[in-house]
């Protein structure tokens, strides 16, 4: 298999309180079947051989479902192409001699910890502010007691497919988390089990989102364009409708 050489210009920042900068590296022996994160592995092996500190980046499942990986490649969260995470970006998307500019997800609510690693704890705090159904273990009725139409289950799944990677935030000029929040609001809102807490949930989650420092929706749809699970911005309409209704009702 033919190999290629790429230039990688990557953000290096030792810690949250220190300044970062872009550093240039050259990575050879890159093959088309290599994923983008495997190419970073090769770069890191070069750095180990040179005795230098490796580029820190989060990565776990490497099959696009855990949401760990995430960085901006050539200005786009998760890099070129649609419906995939950085670990599903393959080097066949590039050609010999290309330059890849690699940066962390940037948002006030996602502080950089080191190099490409950011703190996305804000997402967990938003979920803990009502992004659940209060169903205590052991108290559930039979699973078939509640009929849920196939279409409803499918719509709920489409929203629930969000992997919490944060690309939507990184893509938005306002660093808004509204696609992430709306996906959870819609997922639980579609289902009959989610109805009792629907109003309380949306109000609390939106409050927490604002508290974390995410911006307002820009209405430009960049979030959907970069979302690895192609979560639709239609969910944002559901969130807005639910929110307005909940506020008017005084939830």
């Amino acid at each position, binding site marked *: 298999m033919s190999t290629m050489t790429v230039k990688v210009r990557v953000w290096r920042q030792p810690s949250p309180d220190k300044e970062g900068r872009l550093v240039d590296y050259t990575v050879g022996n890159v093959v088309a079947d290599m994923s983008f994160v495997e190419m970073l592995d090769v770069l890191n092996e070069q750095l180990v051989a040179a005795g230098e500190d490796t580029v820190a980046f989060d990565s776990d499942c490497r099959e696009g479902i855990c949401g760990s990986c995430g960085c901006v490649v050539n200005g786009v969260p998760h890099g070129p192409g649609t419906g995939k995470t950085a670990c599903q970006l393959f080097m066949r998307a590039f050609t010999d001699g290309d330059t890849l500019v690699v940066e962390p997800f940037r948002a006030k609510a996602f502080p950089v910890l080191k190099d490409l690693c950011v703190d996305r704890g804000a997402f967990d705090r938003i979920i803990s502010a009502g992004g659940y159904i209060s169903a205590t*273990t052991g108290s559930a009725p039979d699973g078939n007691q509640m009929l849920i139409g196939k279409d409803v289950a499918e719509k709920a799944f489409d929203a629930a497919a969000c992997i919490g990677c944060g690309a939507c935030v990184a893509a938005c000029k306002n660093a808004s988390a509204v696609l992430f929040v709306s996906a959870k609001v819609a997922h639980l809102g579609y289902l009959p089990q*989610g109805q009792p807490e629907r109003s309380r949930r949306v109000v609390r989650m939106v409050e927490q989102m604002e508290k974390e420092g995410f911006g307002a929706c820009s209405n430009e749809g960049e979030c959907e364009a970069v979302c690895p699970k192609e979560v639709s911005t239609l969910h944002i309409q559901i969130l807005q409708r639910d929110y307005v209704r909940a506020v008017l009702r005084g939830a």
Partner: protein
Amino acid sequence: MILDGKVPSGPIETKWSSYKDHINLVNPANRRKHTVIVVGTGLSGASAAASLGELGYNVLAMTILDSPRRSHSIAAQGGINGAKNYKNDGDSTYRLFYDTIKGGDYRAREANVYRLAQVSVDIIDHCVANGVPFAREYGGLLDNRSFGGAQVSRTFYARGATGQQLLLGAYSGMMRQVDAGTVKILPRREMLDLVMIGGRARGVLCRNLISGQYERYAADAVLLCTGGYANLYYLSTNAGNSNVTAAWRCARRGAYFANPCFTQIHPTCIPESGTHQSKLTLMSESLRNDGRVWVPKQAGDKRNASDIPEAERDYYLERRYPTFGNLVPRDVASRAAKAVCDEGRGVGATGRAVYLDFADAIKRLGEGVVRERYGNLFDMYMHISDENPYRVPMRIYPAIHYAMGGLWVDYNLMSNLEGLFVLGEANFSDHGANRLGASALMQGLGDGYFVIPYTLSNYIGGTKLEPVTTDHDAFKEAENGVDERVKTMLAAKGGKSVKDLHRSLGRVLWDRVGMARNRAGLQQALKEVTALRAEYQQNVRVVGEGQTINKQLEYAMRVNDYMEFADVLVRDALGREESCGCHFREEYQAEDGECQRNDAEYAHVAAWEFKGRDKEPLLHKEPLEFKAAELKQRNYK
């Protein structure tokens, strides 16, 4: 020593209910005074943290990842078993129990498996209640599909992302308890030692993976929910961070490691493409519901799949196992794939792959239905292979996927160390020598939602636990030990990277302790592992510093533990002179190449006690009794 599994007396059907009727309870007002540490937040950890939080315990849940929602349970694709018999096809608690025992080739503990089958129905109900969007029929009822090793449809699923949806369900239950103040999440923390005080597990020593600081946590019980060790083999379907360290550190503190050589090789993974490869990607077993597995009849046939006429294809699973066909258990399907590739009939550039073909299913059901059932899996395949499986058959090959072995636990899920409980894949108890598809999710959630709330209550309610604080000398000793390990690693400036040496270890294990094993190969593996362990100590190179995020350091410490653990795994494979489930010893096979068990000598759990680095571990046995499921040769023909 003969180990006692502490299985309650009485008929198997009533053991669990009568156990629950007689356990020690903890008063609701007192529960918050008891701290429980949950290490790992996958299905078993998140469900345990959620259910214990609901009961009012003070729970500390830690994960090595940046968020508990990312634990590797999330990658499970196909489904979760539940003995609901919604399909009216003859399923029952007994049948799920029996299929699981048989699937595990009679090397699991009967009572645990029966309990698992009993709680399986409650798991489905609970998951529905907390919002898991399971697949539905048009009428609104839950849909099912079939998985390997069963002749009923009992697998509940959410497209090809069932693990994701179940984990997000358990995670949301846990986050609800964060909201309620009973659970505290500690992300980016790695447990590097277990703290034993007065003969009981009373805490853990962690490294904060952001600051590098050591952190001490004291508790009344420690729940290890840290998953499996498949990454020992370097290439596996596991996530990069999945590792054996937490479990191995407990083993070094005296917890027995049971059946380590029972490592599952999953038949349907995307084949290896080159040395750069960092992992192998699974294609769900559910695909075998509609995909047909085949290779050319002629060795060396290099034609494209579409150019090979029907008469020149060998649908070898359907041919060899007409009753179960493409849905034979994983170990059987993996060995069959290896056999046809060994005969030179493998496909693709490397010849180490077989076809999984959907042409018939697409003809029968239409592309739309196939997309609905497996769309995300097909997309994943396309991303990786750059081929369209709607048009050409997938190429698949077996890969290391799951660890049936794990820390030894009794019926209470407590290890031989008092106060150390082990849940989910990290323990050994339910899957014997081979796990059936869609059973891992069931076990993880069963342990966390429906077993541990009772067994932990029994332990805490029945034990006089003296208060301990993190000032105790045992914490200091643990911290000093960890600090020394960290410093040693950071000082390692040899000639090979951690990855290089990990890859070498994986190669030895895959070649000699993989799908086929034999005495000479295992003896050779033992020598090679010893040599690699020595080389690791002398020649590994670790870069970076300790007081910051340093993923090289984390990795280096984990591989150091693999180097020790691999020795026990090889010895276990060497010592078990029979073939059972995934453990196929070439010396012990029937004429047709199927596994030949030796129930007279090996119907036991092999539990290994660590005796020191480079020292032989000590073997303990727990005899396995089969009363509800009669011991007999597995047959899927």
